[in-house]
């Protein structure tokens, strides 16, 4: 008969979709307790410098920084699905940069050209370098933003926005949307499984019909939810604005300093290292 309350395992919360995973990831992040505004400032500073610079080296440094932060934030446990997202984004970039590289200025010396149907491909050293730069910049940007996303739950982001004087209403709407997104996603999951149980996805026609019904179901349930939430709000003494209990701590001057210094360092690095790596030279020996 002997047992203690501690022996009883905790209940678990359910959830399957990527949204839920992303959220869980952010809440378990090691960077969760960094001030959100600080993180936001840093990321924005780095992103700006990343776009301003003409140097591949700077972008590579940004990329490395993003990767390190992301690895630290997620404790090296990036969920599979997120990995796929990143890989997909990079693939699209590669294609896009491929296109940039073969649309070179025809007045410059050609390093590779071809005719395909009605299209003329013309690649120059400049266009080739340009494409690399754009791609590395973009990937650097993605890793940086990912580092932020995997460490900052949406409500924290809302707090950061509030600190930079975005109106409270907007911030609250962000939080409410965020909360209700979970409920609707959960319902979507259930309806999807229920439809498969009733063979709703056999063939194109049925799939279309089922999808439409599910959409209607989600829509009505969101309307219902809104209705009921309105009443519940009043029950809880709502006076027309959302009070905030846990006002985020003031982001220290230190964070501003970090952002400025990082910006300056990267910018200077960019000035001195512009054109140091010549991809065309590496690839074609031009």
């Amino acid at each position, binding site marked *: 008969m002997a047992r203690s309350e501690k022996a009883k395992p905790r209940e678990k919360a359910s959830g399957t979709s990527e949204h839920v995973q992303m959220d869980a990831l952010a809440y378990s992040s090691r960077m969760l307790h960094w001030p959100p505004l600080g993180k936001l400032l840093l990321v924005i500073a780095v992103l700006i410098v990343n776009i301003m610079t003409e140097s591949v080296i700077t972008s590579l440094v940004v990329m490395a920084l993003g990767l390190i932060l992301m690895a630290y934030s997620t404790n090296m446990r990036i969920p599979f699905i997120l990995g796929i997202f990143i890989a997909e984004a990079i693939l699209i970039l590669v294609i896009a940069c491929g296109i940039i590289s073969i649309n070179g200025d025809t007045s410059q010396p050609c390093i590779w050209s071809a005719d395909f149907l009605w299209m003329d491909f013309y690649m120059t050293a400049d266009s080739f370098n340009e494409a690399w730069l754009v791609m590395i910049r973009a990937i650097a940007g993605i890793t940086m933003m990912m580092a932020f996303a995997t460490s900052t739950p949406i409500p924290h982001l809302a707090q950061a926005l509030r600190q930079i004087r975005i109106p409270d209403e907007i911030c609250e709407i962000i939080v409410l949307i965020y909360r209700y997104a979970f409920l609707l996603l959960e319902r979507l999951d259930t309806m999807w499984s229920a*439809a498969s149980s*009733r063979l709703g996805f056999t063939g194109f026609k049925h799939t279309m019909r089922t999808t439409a*019904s599910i959409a209607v179901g989600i829509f009505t349930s969101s309307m219902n939810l809104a209705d009921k939430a309105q009443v519940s709000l009043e029950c809880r003494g709502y006076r027309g604005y959302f009070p905030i209990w846990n006002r985020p701590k003031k982001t220290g001057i230190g964070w501003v300093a970090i952002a400025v210094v990082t910006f300056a360092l990267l910018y200077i690095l960019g000035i001195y290292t512009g054109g140091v790596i010549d991809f065309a030279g590496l690839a074609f020996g031009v």
Partner: protein
Amino acid sequence: MNGSVIDTEKLTFYYEGNDKASLNEVDIHIRRGVKTVILGANGAGKSTLFYHLNGVYRPSSGKVMFEGEPISYRRKALRSLRSRVSVVLQNPDDQIFGQTVESDVAYGPMNLRLPEEEVKERVETALRTVGLTDLRDRNTFKLSYGQRKRLALAGALAMKPEVLVMDEPTAGLDPQMALELMELAEQLHHSGTTVVISTHDVDLAYAWADEIHVLRYGRLIFSGTSEEFYRDPVQVYMTGVVQPSMFLINKSLCDMRGIEEAPYPRTESQLVSKMASGEKGRFLIMPVADRMDSYMLDAAVDEVGGSIKVGLYGSRSRSLLYESGLPVDYVFDGFESCMADCLMGKDVLLLCDESCLDLIGSKLDRLRDFGTDVRAKVMDPSKN
């Protein structure tokens, strides 16, 4: 011993991105024609298990077998599996896809690509079984919660499943609706469908189940009869449930009186039969085919020569009652209510579906184990 219809072998399942197993090496055997309950607290993995039984989820490891053959996840095989194993969810709104009652029931059979005639017939049968025939053209948004719940059940029945899986069938229903739904489940079981119910309502589970499977945090911790499980209070506590009242009352009374706990009463009439005996009334049964008329009551009154309490059993009789407007005392839970009166010495008449006669007979037989031998008589429903 009935053979099993669905088995799982070391079934393990992880939700994506979740490193805790939602199901952990579950070996469950669901036997054909056995009233089965899957018991467990919220979040124990009941629903996750259900979606494996009809192939919507695919196990992370281990396998699921239908009639001894591992499930194939090829599209055609899945289609046939899902028409044989139907799942009814807790919240009916999650699985109503049609605009009108009729079109929603037809949704499943249409997806099966059955000929139109066949679809019509299935819709008809399913609606009649759940008693929604009159509302067939009603918009699904305009139904009450109880009606939507029955509609969801009709949608599953239209697939003519061999195994019907119901998730928390009585959750959120009023007591009467809940009784009606359980009566339906009983009838379906009797007509040869294997009915599996998942619930955390221990009283319901105790009254209904022949066999229970208990899940706790994704593990199957018990398979067998209810009493074996409830006898161990530690197990019961750890599972997040409590002992059913019937079990508790019987145990306490038997302890106090120093008598055997077995046979275990699961319904009120069984408990009462076991604990007290007195002069019993007469128990008349009248099967109803396609109409209900006042002469039926008169015949019964003549038979006993005095006043009589009238109860009702079965969905068909219930829908006939609304047409006929007969004065019936117990529209819901007819058998139990009539039996309670009968045990107290009153004469009763039970109007029931023709198809339920055997079912009533087996309930009466079961009562004999508890010391009650009711003088039951099946009356002839035809007018003479």
